[in-house]
C-alpha cells in the first residue's frame, strides 16, 4: 500500500491547564492518501478546526503523532516545521486573510518571499498562479478593491503559488454566495486533478459531498469516516478525477 501523505496516530489535544483543561481532540486516528479530497465536517466546537491546525502543523499535539510523508512532525524543530509548511502546504481561509493595502501580486508572492526566492522568480510564479485562478489582469489591484469571490481566488493563487502537495481550506465558500462559491469549488477540485491533496474543513454538507471522503468530527472524536466504511473508496479519487460532480455526489450519497 502507498504511504499516506498525512497519517495521524492517537492524536490528543488539550487546551488550558489542569483545573480548566479542555480536551479538544480525543485519540484521533486518520490516514489521508495522496491526491485524495477529504472533507472534515463538524459543528462549531467539535474540534474540526483544532484537527486541521494539527494536520497543518500550525500547532503541536499534546499527545500522538502527525506523520507527513513518512516524517514524524513531532520530532521536527520549529524551523523545520516552518520550512515544511512553506514548501508543502497551501492555505485557504474563510476570512481570506489578505493584506488589504498590498497589491494582489504582493499578496500572492508572500509565501515565496518567506521562502527567500528571488524577485523575478517570485513574480513569474505568482503570475502563473494568478492565471490559474483567472485573475492575472488584477495583479496590480489593491487586494481591498476586489470582490469577495475574487479575494478567495487570490487566496487560492497564494495557496498554490509554492506548488504545494497538500492544500488546506477552512470553510473556503463560507463567505461567498452560491455562484462565486461554485467557481471556487471548481478551482479547488481542478487542483485535485493535478494531484494536490485537498483537506477541506466545512460544515457545508453540499461541499462535503463533493469530496471523495467525509470525516465527521464530534466532541473531539471521529464519529464517521466514509473511507473506513468501504476501503475501495480511498482508491477512487485518482480514477474519479475526470468524473462529473454529480457522479461524485452520488457516491457520497451512497456512502451516507
Amino acid at each position, binding site marked *: 500500500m502507498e504511504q499516506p501523505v498525512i497519517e495521524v496516530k492517537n492524536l490528543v489535544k488539550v487546551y488550558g491547564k489542569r483545573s480548566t483543561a479542555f480536551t479538544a481532540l480525543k485519540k484521533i486516528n486518520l490516514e489521508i492518501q495522496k491526491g485524495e479530497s477529504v472533507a472534515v465536517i463538524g459543528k462549531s466546537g467539535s474540534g474540526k478546526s483544532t484537527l486541521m*491546525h494539527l494536520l*497543518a502543523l*500550525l*500547532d503541536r499535539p499534546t499527545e500522538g503523532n502527525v506523520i507527513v510523508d513518512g516524517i514524524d512532525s513531532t520530532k521536527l524543530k*520549529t*524551523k523545520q516545521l*516552518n*520550512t*515544511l*509548511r*512553506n*514548501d508543502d502546504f497551501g*492555505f485557504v*481561509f474563510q*476570512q481570506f*486573510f489578505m*493584506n488589504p*493595502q498590498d497589491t494582489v501580486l504582493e499578496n500572492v508572492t*508572500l*509565501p515565496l*518571499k*518567506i*521562502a*527567500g526566492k528571488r524577485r523575478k522568480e517570485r513574480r513569474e510564479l505568482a503570475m502563473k498562479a494568478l492565471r490559474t485562478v483567472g485573475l492575472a489582469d488584477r495583479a496590480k489591484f489593491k487586494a481591498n478593491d476586489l470582490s469577495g469571490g475574487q479575494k478567495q481566488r487570490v487566496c487560492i493563487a497564494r495557496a498554490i503559488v509554492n506548488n504545494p502537495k497538500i492544500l488546506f481550506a477552512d470553510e473556503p465558500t463560507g463567505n461567498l454566495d452560491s455562484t462565486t462559491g461554485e467557481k471556487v469549488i471548481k478551482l479547488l477540485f481542478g487542483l485535485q486533478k493535478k494531484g494536490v491533496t485537498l483537506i477541506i474543513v466545512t460544515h457545508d454538507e453540499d461541499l462535503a459531498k463533493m469530496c471523495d471522503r467525509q470525516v465527521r468530527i464530534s466532541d473531539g472524536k471521529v464519529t464517521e469516516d466514509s473511507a473506513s466504511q468501504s476501503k475501495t473508496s480511498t482508491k477512487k479519487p485518482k480514477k474519479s478525477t475526470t468524473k462529473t460532480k454529480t457522479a461524485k455526489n452520488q457516491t457520497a450519497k451512497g456512502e451516507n
Partner: protein
Amino acid sequence: MKFFDILRTANHNLFRNKVRTMLTVIAIFVGSFTIILNVAINTGVNSFIDEQTASLGGDNFIMLMPSGSSEMASSMVASSEPVEFVEKKTGETEVGAFSDEDIEKLKQIDGIDADSFYSPAPLSGTGYYASDKTDKKYEIQNLMILPPGNFKIPLAAGELVDQNEEAKKKNQVVLAPGYREALGYETDEDIIGQTITIGIKNEILDKWTAIDVEVVGVEASGIVSSSMGTLISHAVYDALADAVYEGYPSEYRDNQPNYYIMATYDTNRFSEDEIKQAIADAGYEAWTVSDMMGMIRTFFDAIMIVFTIFGSIALLAAAIGIINTLLMSVEERTREIGLDKALGMSSGRVFTEFAVEAISLGFWGSAFGVVVAMFIGTLANSAVHAPGGFLAELPTFNLFEFTASNIIPFMIIIMFIAFLAGTIPAWKAAHKNPIDALRYE
C-alpha cells in the same frame, strides 16, 4: 527571506501608517536634532581650541615663569594687601624676571627641551602704526620677534615669515587682528604685501624714528593668539631696538629682563602634572596648555552637558514613542503576523522585521535631525560671523562643525536606541501564536 526584502517590507509597513510614522520620526528628530547640534558645537569649539593650542606650539608647550608670578598677576586684580618692603641686594634680579642662573637651572630639568627655549623679548615704548590710506595713527602693541616654526599661529591672510637667515634681514611684520581695518584696508588680503609705517619714540633723546615695513600676514582672531601682539622680523626688531635704546647704556639693551620663557617638554615621558611638579620643585612656576585652555573648555563643557541632557530626555521620550508606535502596529497586524507565521515565517524573521522597522524609524528621525541641524548650523555659522555677529572677530571659529566622524557614530547610536526600544514590540510580535493570530478579528 532576504535581508533586502526585510528592509523593504519594514519601510513599506512604516509607510502604511504615514501619520503615526511621521509623528514618531518627529519625536526622534527633536532629540537627535538637539544632540547633533550639540555635538557640532562641541566639535567646533574643540577644533577651535585645538587650533589655538597649536598656535602655542602644540600640547608639548609649557610656559615657564619665576615663582610667584601668578600670585603677582592675581594680586593686581584683587585688592592688594600691603607688602612689607625688603631691601634687595645689589645685582639681584628684578622680582618676576629670570636671571641667567635661573635659565641655566631650568634647562637642567629633566624632560624640558633646552633647545626649545624661546624668550620673546618684548619691545615696549611709545609708538604708532600709520598707513597712507588713513590720516589717523594707532598706538603700537607689544612687538614680538616672530617665534620659531613650532609655534603655529593661525593667520587670517598671508603667511608666516620663514625665519631663515635671509628672511631675518627683511623688514616684515605679521599684524595683530583688528589693525587691518583701522589702517584703511577693506579685506585681510588687501593689506598683504602693502607697506605700513611703524614709528617709535626714544624717551631720553625725545626723538621719533619711523621705519617702513611690509605686511606679510594678518593673525586670525583668537582667544589666545590675540595676545601675541604684532610679530616682527629680526630686522625690524633690530631697527626699532636701535632707535629705542639709543643713548642708553649698552647693558640695558642686552639685559632686558625675561619675564617668561616658552619651551617644550617631552610628552612621552612626562604628564603635564609631572612636569609642572618638577618645575615647582626647582622653585619656578609653569603653565601648560591645559591651564590656559582649561577655563574655556570648562565653560563650554558645562553648556554641552546641559544640552546633552535635554537631547537625551527628548530621545528617551522618542524611544517610548517608538515602543508605543510599534506596539500598536503589532496589535493591528496581529492577523498579518499570524498569516506570515502560518506560511512558514520563523519567529526570528518576525522579530527582525519589527526590529528593522524600529531601526528605520531611528534612521529617518536621526537623518532628518542631521539634515536640519546642518542647515541651521550653517546658517548660524554665517550669522555669527557676519559683521556685528558675536563671533565676527573670530573668523576661524566655526561654532557648528559637522564632520562624518561626529555624525555617523551619532546616527548609529540613535539607531541602536531605536532598536532597543523596538525589541519589546518585536518580541511580542515574534511570540504570537499563528492560530491565535489568525482567529483574531
